[in-house]
């Protein structure tokens, strides 16, 4: 876990003070800023508004400008229980842990805030650490942060955050000892699992108290079960600068390999302007954990995950309905738009009607007038076509010809034989430019001769 880019703010809260530490990561540089408020006199968690205001002032004075923070509580304010549970899914585990809490804790969720973390144990089940903190403290801490103008991302244990900075424990487990000015806290971890978080009543100030620590650790070991599960490593966060020799001696006595942690090596916080004082290690570890600490009383895993307000089917139905509605709206809007265009067009046509009517009459008049100029229906063409149908030898001849303006032609004549009339008739019918060829009459001329008179009517509209 690394520091996030930007500002990472942590508040370490204990009985005596609130220490604020902001780790600013920007432009490849890391900067550490700190501020603190002592809880004395009337400035306590009991008066969160006042404490918040003072904290706000200190933050401003120290140049800490982050708007959200992670809060770390001391182990003395937290009660932890380890539970070995069979493998279970998240939901079942939540139920099991809730039942275990009901059995193990006298107070309910109104008085205590709970959370848990679960990891696979070497035995195949789940190693679950249930943590509880007083609801009143959680509320007070939130109120202080709010009064200081801060949002709270998580409320967790400072010791757990420090233990997590040291990476996963080996198979034998380890004890992480946080030696602070206000007291000593121990976290026991095995592999990924956290097994115990405990405030030790002894303060590490001199060789005598180091021996006291040894006694406290010796009393812890039986709580961890079989000898095979006993921790084999002791990691010490020394925030007070005591002599390490008595601690090393106590660890040797318990058969624990000791290592003293540093803010640079374990938290990964180093730089030219960064203090190597381990007193800030807790806050730095919290700042590093601001994207999701192991235990978070603010976002408890015991809380039922919020159910989706809308199910998949409902969402699909809503999507279909929305699509249909969108189509409907589009159709309606498009229709209204077309309707508007129709109205505009109708208005234009209405306004231009008189001009169009006048133009139509004018065009018709001019078209009519052109029949006296270039569109004349001539008579020579029909005369030519009729003449071509008559033979040149004189067996048949026309006595009269009438051509009307509609190109109706009437030919009246005489013939020596009726056959000649029929020949003329055939020739006229063979001419495609003539139509409606009709024999009005063919009759004898009245004498004994076979001569006949005839009259033929035809239309010569197709003749040029």
């Amino acid at each position: 876990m690394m520091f996030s880019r930007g500002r990472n703010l942590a508040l370490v809260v204990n009985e005596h003070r609130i220490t604020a530490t902001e780790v600013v990561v920007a432009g490849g540089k890391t900067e550490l800023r700190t501020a603190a408020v002592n809880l004395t006199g009337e400035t306590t968690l009991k008066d969160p508004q006042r404490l918040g205001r003072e904290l706000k002032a200190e933050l401003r004075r120290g140049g800490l400008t982050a708007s959200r923070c992670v809060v770390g509580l001391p182990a003395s304010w937290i009660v932890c229980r380890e539970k070995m549970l069979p493998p279970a899914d998240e939901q079942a585990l939540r139920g099991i842990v809730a039942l275990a809490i009901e059995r193990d804790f006298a107070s309910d969720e109104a008085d205590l805030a709970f959370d848990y973390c679960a990891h696979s144990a070497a035995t195949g089940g789940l190693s679950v650490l249930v943590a509880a903190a007083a609801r009143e403290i959680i509320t007070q801490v939130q109120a202080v942060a709010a009064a200081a103008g801060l949002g709270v991302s998580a409320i967790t244990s400072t010791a757990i955050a420090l233990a997590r900075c040291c990476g996963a424990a080996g198979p034998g487990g380890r004890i992480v000892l946080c030696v602070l000015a206000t007291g000593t806290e121990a976290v026991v971890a095995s592999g990924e699992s956290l097994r115990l978080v405990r405030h030790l009543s002894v303060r590490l100030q001199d060789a005598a108290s180091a021996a006291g620590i040894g006694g406290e650790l010796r009393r812890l070991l039986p709580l961890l079960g079989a000898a095979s599960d006993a921790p084999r490593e002791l990691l010490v966060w020394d925030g007070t600068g005591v002599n390490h020799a008595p601690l090393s001696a106590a660890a040797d006595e318990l058969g624990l390999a000791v290592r003293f942690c540093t803010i640079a090596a374990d938290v990964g916080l180093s730089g030219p302007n960064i203090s190597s004082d381990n007193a800030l290690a807790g806050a730095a570890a919290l700042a590093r954990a601001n994207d999701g600490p192991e235990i978070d009383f603010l976002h408890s895993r015991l809380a039922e995950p919020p159910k989706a307000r809308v199910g998949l089917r409902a969402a699909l139905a809503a999507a279909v309905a929305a699509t249909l509605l969108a189509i409907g709206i589009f159709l309606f809007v498009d229709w209204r738009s077309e309707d508007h265009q129709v109205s505009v067009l109708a208005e234009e046509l209405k306004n231009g009607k008189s001009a169009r009517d006048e133009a139509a009459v004018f065009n018709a008049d001019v078209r009519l007038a052109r029949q006296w100029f270039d569109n004349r229906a001539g008579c020579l063409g029909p005369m030519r076509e009729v003449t071509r149908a008559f033979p040149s030898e004189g067996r048949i001849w026309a006595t009269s010809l009438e051509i009307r303006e509609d190109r109706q032609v009437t030919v009246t004549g005489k013939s020596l034989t009726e056959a000649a009339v029929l020949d003329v008739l055939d020739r006229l019918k063979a001419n495609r430019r003539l139509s409606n060829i009709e024999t009005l009459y063919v009759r004898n001329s009245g004498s004994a001769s076979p001569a006949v008179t005839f009259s033929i009517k035809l239309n010569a509209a197709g003749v040029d």
Partner: protein
Amino acid sequence: MVLSKRERVILIATIVVAGAVLAYWLIVSPLLDARAATAATKAKLTADAAEGRLLMAQRQRSAAALEQMKRSNLKTDPAEAEAQVLHAMRRWAEGAGLGRGQVQTVRIAGKGRFSEIEFQTSYSGTMRGITQLLWQIESADIPIRVVKLQIASRKEGQDDLNFELRLSTLYAPKGQPAPARAGGGG
């Protein structure tokens, strides 16, 4: 009332189908009908507008044609129009060897913004003379046209014919509205 899952599904499906049918009947179908009616009206109006634009363009061409007619001896005075035809007929008939014949004005009638004068003429002559006269009429630069033509032989077997022509000329009386320049379409 407790419904089983199957009953609940059937109930929801029924409600959805009924709702869809109802929505189609009350909203979609009338909307589609209205859209179709609007589209049809728009198509008709668009066609009318296009026709109107065509008409106005045609009017411009007609106005130009009328100007051309006026330059081609389209008279405004009926007496001038009548005299123009009488002179032309006399000239053409004599040129075709048909003599002076008879020419008589028979009718004056209105034709829209124009007026028409009809003449009844009769000539005697040969087919050649008749065709010459007809050619003159058909290729004349004055407004004249043949309404009716009658040719009859006077003596059978000879090229001696009676020739009656009903002619018409056109004039544009004064006081008729001047051909306005075409305006916008639509």
